[in-house]
């Protein structure tokens, strides 16, 4: 049982490039989330999903897109990367018990 996995662990992008951050969970959780954590701050919600085929925006969705074709996977797409998207990205999942399980995070730098 791997829990929540994220790839890659680190990435450096140039301005204007695009990439996909991968997230997978093997706990059969319905709910999945993407957060970003800026230096010295708490996590802020980017997008979330309540099940396969259903996604919705969080607090800071601009510049990102998501899809949820399966229960297990919830990739986050960055189009036209900007320096403001330099952050640490966390994926999380939960069942109906409200406790969220987090992946190890991806540190992204946009130069």
């Amino acid at each position, binding site marked *: 049982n791997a829990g929540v996995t994220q790839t890659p662990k680190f990435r450096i992008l140039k301005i204007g490039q695009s990439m996909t951050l991968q997230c997978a969970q093997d706990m059969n959780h*319905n*709910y999945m*989330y993407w*957060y970003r954590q800026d230096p*010295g*701050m*708490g*996590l*802020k*919600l980017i997008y*979330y999903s*309540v099940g396969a085929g259903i996604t919705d925006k*969080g607090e800071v969705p601009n510049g990102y897109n998501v899809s949820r074709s399966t229960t297990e996977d919830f990739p986050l797409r960055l189009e036209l990367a900007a320096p403001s998207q330099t952050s*640490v990205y*966390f994926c*999380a999942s*939960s*069942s*109906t*018990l*409200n*406790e*969220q399980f*987090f992946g*190890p*995070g991806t*540190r992204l730098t946009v130069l």
Partner: protein
Amino acid sequence: AQTVTQSQPEMSVQEAETVTLSCTYDTSESDYYLFWYKQPPSRQMILVIRQEAYKQQNATENRFSVNFQKAAKSFSLKISDSQLGDAAMYFCAYTGQAGTALIFGKGTTLSVSS
């Protein structure tokens, strides 16, 4: 909108001593959950303790306990017998119904000295 406030950016404690981290929140909901997460330098978010709002009894997990004051909307974390491994950033977080996102405070950096 719900908010979570941690008023202590940094705290320090000596090994074996007790420290309390503060958290207040604002909500109009009656049913919700509160959490404390630990984030060590590895960045991994580790759940320390959780509290259901409908439970009057304060949650306890080994050396970690909370003081939940629902009327005051206060949720502090007490760490007893502090250890060097407790050094980390601690986040207080709130969530409402199942499937809603966590709302985090800005965190408190805890340092532990020997």
